[in-house]
């Protein structure tokens, strides 16, 4: 067993190397080797600073520089992202049983896709590593889920109002097939990226459509209820974002001091 501090360093190192597009196998190899070292050093009464010096950031950088960047692996992430985004957008309507495609929807999907790829990348590689060992990681996940759901519900409502001419409307069977395919994409992505994100966020996204399918129609059609729901989502999301921005600022300050 290694100390919490060492474990934190190894996790940060893993995320740092991942964000720099290093090869997965090489990342595993170096972190495992360092883990063995930290374990034996700690057994001899040394602490993590004895091993990595006083600037973990500098040390991570020096390791990163000795490793090759795996562009093929990085390129593989792009189709996976696109598949995942397609699945994010499709799973809601498929659960509701009214998946259809129109030109307007496709445009929205493309624009939302570009924004989401950027946002998702920032979240996984830049924001999340700083929160891994704090209870805030759960808040962050929850906040993101709620925010994503809220935004998607709003986009969906707006999209329905536009009355775009559908170019493809799915049959009940096709809706179920789409749902299953989306689930497979989420599971494969979770295994590939070794994160729970791709399972947790779709669960949040699915909550709305599932409720839509099972809550009585009169409640569903009442604009007051709809408005309340949207307002609640927005407020919760705003609180989460605020809390985690404050926390992040604090973490960055303390992190900065440590790295001097």
């Amino acid at each position, binding site marked *: 067993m290694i100390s919490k501090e060492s474990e934190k360093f190894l996790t940060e190192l893993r995320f740092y190397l991942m964000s720099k597009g290093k090869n997965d196998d090489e990342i595993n190899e170096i972190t*495992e*080797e360092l883990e063995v070292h930290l374990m034996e050093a700690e057994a001899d009464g040394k602490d993590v600073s004895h*091993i990595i010096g006083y600037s973990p950031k500098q040390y991570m950088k020096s*390791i990163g520089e000795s490793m090759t960047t795996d562009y093929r692996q990085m390129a593989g992430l792009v189709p996976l992202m696109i598949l995942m985004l397609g699945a994010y957008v499709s799973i809601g309507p498929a659960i509701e049983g009214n998946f259809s495609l129109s030109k307007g929807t496709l445009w929205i999907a493309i624009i939302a896709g570009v924004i989401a790829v950027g946002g998702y990348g920032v979240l996984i590689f830049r924001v999340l590593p700083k929160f891994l060992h704090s209870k805030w990681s759960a808040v962050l996940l929850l906040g993101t889920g709620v925010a994503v759901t809220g935004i998607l519900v709003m986009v969906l409502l707006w999209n329905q109002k536009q009355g775009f001419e559908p170019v493809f409307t799915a049959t009940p069977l096709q809706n179920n097939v789409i749902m299953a395919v989306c689930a497979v994409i989420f599971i494969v992505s979770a295994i590939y990226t070794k994160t729970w994100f791709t399972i947790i966020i779709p669960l949040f996204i699915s909550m709305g459509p599932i409720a839509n399918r099972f809550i009585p129609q009169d409640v569903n059609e009442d604009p007051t209820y709809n408005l309340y729901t949207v307002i609640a989502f927005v407020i919760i999301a705003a609180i989460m974002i605020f809390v985690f921005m404050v926390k992040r600022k604090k973490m960055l300050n303390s992190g900065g001091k440590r790295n001097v």
Partner: protein
Amino acid sequence: MSDTTQMLKGILDGCLLAIIKEGEIYGYELAAKLESYGFRSLSEGTIYPLLLRMQKEGLISATLRKSTAGPKRKYYTLTEKGEQELDLFIVRWEQVSSSVDNVLSKRGI
């Protein structure tokens, strides 16, 4: 401390090759040996990026082996190319070290 590290760049490669030549060795042991030879101000982790690079350059090779302590250890051995590099290092070091000695003892060349 960082000044020493800066000064050691390049020299440390040769030292690692020389220690690995003595026999198969894993990271922690290697760091401990360096320390026992007097490299006390060096952070132990410094060797890993170097080992990684030397492995890529084909100077050393690595095998994973089970240990009694827990996870597998990565043992390093010198390759033929590594031995040649070590010989070159020794020649270069002797030149540098005698030149520095000359300068410091103010004898000049």
